[in-house]
């Protein structure tokens, strides 16, 4: 049963890494390190391996980190990303235009 959950977590982190780094995520350090960790923690002589569960929990926390940063960024872009409108746009919203002065004002560039 722990094996099934481990697979889910592993695939989750790989998906997040692929999302971040594109198709060459297999060359990244994070991918190599992750694979090493999972491989090395697989084989053990103990029946109840605390290190395996600890490594799995750490990986789950990392998955949560990657996933929630991504979702947070998405929500930010969606709802809070636009910023304020410039004065030109605001004027156009109500059908007015910005005043212009030929030669510019004295303190403008």
């Amino acid at each position: 049963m722990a094996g099934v959950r481990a697979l889910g977590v592993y695939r989750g982190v790989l998906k997040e890494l692929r999302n971040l780094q594109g198709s060459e995520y297999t060359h990244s350090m994070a991918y190599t390190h992750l694979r090493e960790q999972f491989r090395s923690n697989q084989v053990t002589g103990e029946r109840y391996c605390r290190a395996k569960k600890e490594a799995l929990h750490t990986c789950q926390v990392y998955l949560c980190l990657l996933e929630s940063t991504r979702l947070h960024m998405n929500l930010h872009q969606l709802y809070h990303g636009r910023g304020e409108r410039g004065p030109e746009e605001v004027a156009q919203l109500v059908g007015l235009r910005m005043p212009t002065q030929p030669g510019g004002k004295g303190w403008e560039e």
Partner: protein
Amino acid sequence: MLPGLCRFHGLVSRALVPLAGRQVELKLLGCSANVQRARYATPATERKKFYRDVTISQGEGGLYEINLDRRKLKTPGGKLFTVPNEALAIAVATEWDAQKDTLKFYTMHLTTLCNTALDNPTQRDKDQIISAALKFLETDTVCYRVEEPPGLVELQKNEWDPVLEWIEKRYNVVIGSSYSIMGPQIPEETKDTFRQHLKSYNVWSLIGLEYVISQLKSVVLSLGLIDRHLTVEQAVLLSRLEEEYQIQHWGNVEWAHDYDMYELRARTAAGTLFVYLSSESATVKKKILQD
């Protein structure tokens, strides 16, 4: 603690090394004098991504450094950015690598934590950090119970009581919950037990732990996370229990509730990961198979 972190978020943009970056900065500062041409989309906290590759290298003393293209990363305080173990260095490098076009420092939680640990801007030693962390115990979220509505009382009993029982059993302490506004009375022995336990962690782990506690507003939940009794999602849910109850009653507002929840999850996960990676040490013992 948090104001210190926020201040350093801003300082990061000024203390990063490259010269080209400085020129961009000066231009931005120059045109802020001109009110008419105020720039709305590029505040001083957004910098362009000025590097292509992120790699790590091992420097002196076995400490790992991050290289952005050819330049070494530095902390806002000007020190060289060094990390004691490889896994944390890789995670930080992945954070920097994940930036596209502009650098969003508010998503780089692990980097912020490392900067705080390296610079120690408020100049605290281990005991001060432990006292600051344990101060949250008197106002721990899990100990404050309401008397109505009955649904929430029930929920608090079912969700928070098991965690309290677990921590009381594990650390052999008395915490208890309270219905009054003054909160629970925490006996001195409880605080001493926790102080003893926390002394066994190193400074980096303590900084991470204090960060998690200040995010979750609960010492009990943070210790549950550190001891791997809870997952991050569970801990965040328990911390926001009343909010979740109200959401179920009144409905969910995506741009506020989900936004806050994901941000809290990201920060808590970063803090927890920071504690795990700073406090663990792995050794591999190979058994020789006898044929």
